[in-house]
């Protein structure tokens, strides 16, 4: 039941967010985030050889939003994909591979930094943040393995924006 409740909540959040997303796509600041940590990205010993990320698919489905503005723009139907990503410690993911507008939750790992369109930010467990469609997100992990959960919302327009 909890799972379906969470999926229901996710849809509700998604409907709100996609409207906002279509209006202006700026990375949402973390309400509890601290200023960006000074990193040393050129420090080779800080990161291991990149691993290929293999997400765990949790949900994948389409839905139609009853929003006149989006329907008129041909974006009433959206694809929603919920995935978990294990990111080993000491990794730098130059370009996070998920497409679309992303709602991201950090599920574990206390040593996670994202760089979204050049904006560098430390992330914390349980934190939510968004990534606009078409943005580039890099991820760096320190001593902890991290798990992030992404809800990717794609329309024909923002899939193209990522290409």
């Amino acid at each position, binding site marked *: 039941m909890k799972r379906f409740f969470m999926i229901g909540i996710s849809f509700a959040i998604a409907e709100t967010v996609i409207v906002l997303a279509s209006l202006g796509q700026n990375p949402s600041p973390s309400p509890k985030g601290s200023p960006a940590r000074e990193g040393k990205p050129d420090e080779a010993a800080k990161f291991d050889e990149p691993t290929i990320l293999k997400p765990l698919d949790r949900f994948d489905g389409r839905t139609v939003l009853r929003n006149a503005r989006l329907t008129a723009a041909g974006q009433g139907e959206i694809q929603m994909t919920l995935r978990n990503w294990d990111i080993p*410690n000491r990794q730098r993911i130059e370009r996070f591979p998920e497409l679309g507008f992303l709602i991201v939750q950090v599920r574990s790992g*206390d040593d996670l930094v994202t760089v979204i369109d050049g904006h560098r930010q430390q992330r914390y467990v349980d934190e939510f943040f968004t990534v606009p469609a078409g943005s580039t997100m890099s991820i760096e992990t320190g001593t902890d393995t991290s798990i992030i959960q992404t809800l990717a919302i794609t329309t024909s327009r923002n899939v193209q924006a990522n290409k």
Partner: protein
Amino acid sequence: MRHDHLLQSTPLRIAIFLSVVSFSACKKEQEWHSFHYNSMRTSSQPNSTALSDPARVPSLAVRWTWTAPPPGPGGNAGFRASPVVNDNIVYIGNGNGYFYALNGDTGALRWQYPPASSPALVTQFQCNPSSYGIASSATITDINGTDAVIFAAPDQSIGMHLGDSRLFALNAKTGAEIWKSPVIARLTGLTSGSKTEFHENIGYSSPVVFNHHVYVGIGDQCDNPIQKGRVVAVHLDTGAIDAAFSYCSTGTCGDSTRGGGVWSPVSGAGQNVYMTTGNTKAGAPTEPSPNNGLSMIKLDQNSGAIIWKFQPVPWVLDGDPDWSAGATIMSASCGAVVISTMKDGWTHALDDGPTVPGPPSRRWTFPPATIPFTPGDGTTHGDTRYMRGGASWGDVYITMNGGLNLTVSGVLGGYRRLHAFNVCAAEADRLRWLIDVPGTSPPNPSQRYYLGHPTVTNGIVYVGTDLGHLVVIADPSLVPAAGFRCSNPDVTNANCIASGYKFVPQPAVLKDIPLSGRMVYNEPALANGRVYVATEGNNVYMLSP
């Protein structure tokens, strides 16, 4: 004359002898000889003392404080190990790489090892507090009639001279060496991410004396990179490695598979040793075979062969929920129960079962779950911080736990919370009480650690906090609860019953004493009616009512 005459009476001599023996035994039992008290890692002082008297606990106060010398080259200040106590002497290693014996009455230094003029026991591979000097807690034993203290530490005088770890056995009275083991955990290079060097570490795995051996677990240096988890046994009399005992967490002991680090203290009971293991995935493309990572495991004490393995999180869900708390073996009214909380926040209780190989029998999991977890069940199992051992008292197990809201609300809320479980009860009565421990930081997403290892004596629970408080909590059967709260921490009392939950007691706090320095790695040792506790502030404290 009359007294001399009486002493010549054989029956009286026997009676006096037995009295002395029983007094000595009683006195020994009131001490704290190992991390988590004993080989079963019960974290429980069973003898009644002032510390188990709710009327006397409120007068608990600091009687002495001892501060370790500042660290030299390669050392770090602070205690991550916990004290053990024997014959009124307190033993503990420091991040500065020295091991100390203190007078239990006064805190005066009796001896240290090695001498201050000798190099400290530190490693050159330092990345988190598990590699700061001596992080492993000691254990007390008898070696050929001599009281001995055994601890694990890095030592740059052996191997590649980088800080391979070994075991040390010292005369408990004098600090003189009895033996030093060969290299136990190998450190053959300092290259980050190297797959050709060994980066093993003993870390927090406290040695246990059992079956006339000393067993200790091998983990790694902050997963840089993960190493093959192992348990090593050495002969108690000599410190020589017993080649007949062999346990490795993945593949064979000689192959290149990795993972399953043994971060936890090894436990011993009956004819078996028990431990828990860390992750194996860490970006690996394929699962090692066999994969004994993320498991609670029972081994044959002589061979290291697996009797049973309980692996609730399959490889596909391995997001690094290392099992850091060790296994506690409880002699409960429903039988011997092996119990521990995994780093992801679930507590698992198993029947100890027979000593012949076979699958384990799970009694329960809290929060309730279908085990093994599956990709479709909505759970995640990552590098979260439910890492401290639990304490057992009768049929009660006190531990950190993610709580009934774990899968909905995330992991942070449970970091400051202790749960007490009725181990043998029906599921509806599993949760005995829960409390958000005072003296901790407010919930903060950047905060990782809030609580140390709890210990208990006859229902009175002692625990250290990140703000350096020693908090004493009374089971509601001893002192009326401070109140009641919903068993699901997210649900208000007004909605509790209607939401399908029940009220559980919130136990009374008998004492909250601010000390100096975090106590998130440490446990309070409850010995002879006194509390001995160390902090990352570099202090050892003795408190008594």
